[in-house]
């Protein structure tokens, strides 16, 4: 057991113990950070290989709305509804991903196609207002505390669920990293033709990572909906959510495993901090700062905060090595 393992164990211990000492408000923030961190991580699984999708609001919206609608209208428990929503998201990811990859719709064209996709889902939810409640939002029927309905008034349950979800997301990230997939995808994002020429099934690898990313985003959306017990098309789908996902992941650093989580931590604490500091006098203050931060981030540190820290770490290690000689 080395220092690295000790840090990991210590960090995990703190995360497990937190619910016993913190107030409901802090719990609420932590759950949000974990859930959004999970979703941002899911997005980065595509983003870091150069598929910048502005359509993840679509996956999240489907993931959140499908189980809630099935629950409200057919009494179908979320344990079945959530997998159905996830499956539908994956299907949508395939339907949009396959032609995009086949026809080499890349870069900002890919971004714009997926942007249109997220608008399609948002507007469909609004248009079906008789069923979904439209812009007024949707409240899943309350069933008290129950595992069957996946509803709990005690935030600690959701804390544990989000924590597990988030750890699961990191595990998926790691398995992509560890497996052959990582090198394959890196090769594809460097030079597609060259990758194909050495026998890589470019299409299959791209679709695989798209499916994983869509599935996890939908799962995150579903749990987010179960936690908040209120869905609004503007807060779980559409262009605003899609951009929020992209930007938080970039600010945190989409190339590192913990980058997207750092993005969630930073954006949510910034938002809350400014909200508390300025009350409602400055509704736009948080996003004004956020916008400037984003521009600076993309210009000066495209690898995000974690990327910057890593580079500083490497430099320090190098200078230490020089000093030791």
């Amino acid at each position, binding site marked *: 057991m080395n220092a690295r393992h000790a840090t990991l164990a210590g960090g995990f211990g703190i995360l497990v113990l937190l619910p016993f000492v913190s107030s409901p408000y802090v719990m609420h923030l932590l759950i949000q950070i974990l859930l959004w961190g999970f979703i941002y991580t899911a997005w980065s699984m595509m983003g870091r290989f150069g598929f910048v999708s502005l359509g993840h609001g679509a996956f999240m919206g489907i993931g959140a709305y499908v189980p809630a609608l099935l629950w409200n209208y057919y009494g179908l428990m979320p344990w079945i509804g959530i997998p159905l929503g996830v499956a539908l998201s994956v299907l949508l990811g395939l339907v949009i991903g396959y032609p995009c990859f086949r026809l080499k719709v890349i870069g900002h064209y890919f971004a714009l196609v997926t942007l249109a*996709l997220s608008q399609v889902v948002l507007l469909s939810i609004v248009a079906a207002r008789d069923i979904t409640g439209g812009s007024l939002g949707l409240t899943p029927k309350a069933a008290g505390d129950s595992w069957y309905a996946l509803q709990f008034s005690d935030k600690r349950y959701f804390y544990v669920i989000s924590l597990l979800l988030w750890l699961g997301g990191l595990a998926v990230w790691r398995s992509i990293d560890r497996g052959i997939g990582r090198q394959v995808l890196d090769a594809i994002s460097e030079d597609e033709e060259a990758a194909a020429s050495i026998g890589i099934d470019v299409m299959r690898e791209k679709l695989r990572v798209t499916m994983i990313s869509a599935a996890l985003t939908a799962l995150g959306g579903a749990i987010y909906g179960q936690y908040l017990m209120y869905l609004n098309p503007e807060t779980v789908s559409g262009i605003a959510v899609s951009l929020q996902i992209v930007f938080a992941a970039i600010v945190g650093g989409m190339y590192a495993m913990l980058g997207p989580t750092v993005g969630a931590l930073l954006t949510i604490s910034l938002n809350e901090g400014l909200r508390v500091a300025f009350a409602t006098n400055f509704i736009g*203050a948080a996003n004004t700062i*956020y916008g400037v931060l984003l521009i600076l981030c993309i*210009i000066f540190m495209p690898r995000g905060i974690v990327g910057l820290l890593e580079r500083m770490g490497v430099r320090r290690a190098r200078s230490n090595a020089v000093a030791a000689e």
Partner: protein
Amino acid sequence: MDIYLVEAIVNGLLLGGVLALLALGLNLIFGVIDVVWIAYADIVMCGMYILYWLYAGLGWPLPLACAVAIVGLAAFGVLVHLLIIEPILHSAPINQLLATGGLLFFLQSFATLLFGTDFRNIGVRLPIIELGGIYISYARLLAFAMALIGAVVLYFFLKRTFIGTAIRAIAQDRDIIGLMGVDQRRIYLLTSAIGGGLAGLAACLLALQHDVHPFIGNTFGPLIFMICVLGGLGDMIGGFIAAFIISQIISIGGYYSNTELSYVLAFTFFIVLMFVRPRGILAR
């Protein structure tokens, strides 16, 4: 034929004019600098606020306020290029899109800070014309005419003047143009200024028919990106036609069902067409 359907088609035609005008500047920047200003519709929003503030707030005469809005946004376009695009001009195009996305957040929330989220109207009431039982909004007619004039002027500027030729040349080959003695940077700045100015013009005409609020860009933004891509990058005529196709889908679709579904139809049409004709509807 049903008179309401005719009205829907005529109104669609006029909406197409507004969209074509909105897409004109974006298309120029998209085609020449190869950058997507994802905040373009929000820059238009700023122009609407400038107009609102000068005309309704300070009581300036309308033409003067419009002129200030147009010149102001042209200057803003130059600033956007200098501060945001130029430092990352040579990195992947997606980075430029995302950096202007930061601008989108900034502008929307800054407008919220300054003006709140209220819907504001500049309070100019233009008449509604009745023509054989069809009601046509004068403001839309005006926007349609201006879009037509703007497109024609821009077309001749690009085709007939030296600078216009240089702009078209740079869109075709970025590297070789320096050898021909054209200052690439100057062309980019000029393009950004024209793009910004066109956003200002669109803002003036849009303010006549829509209330301004900080998130109005979200309504028009996605539509005008679709139009630019559908029309083919930098293809002014294609963009013009695309604007009318999209507006007809929205207008006729809205007649048969509801507004949201007609937008869904338009976005779906865009996605499908991206796969069928990725280089634009007029591409050979």
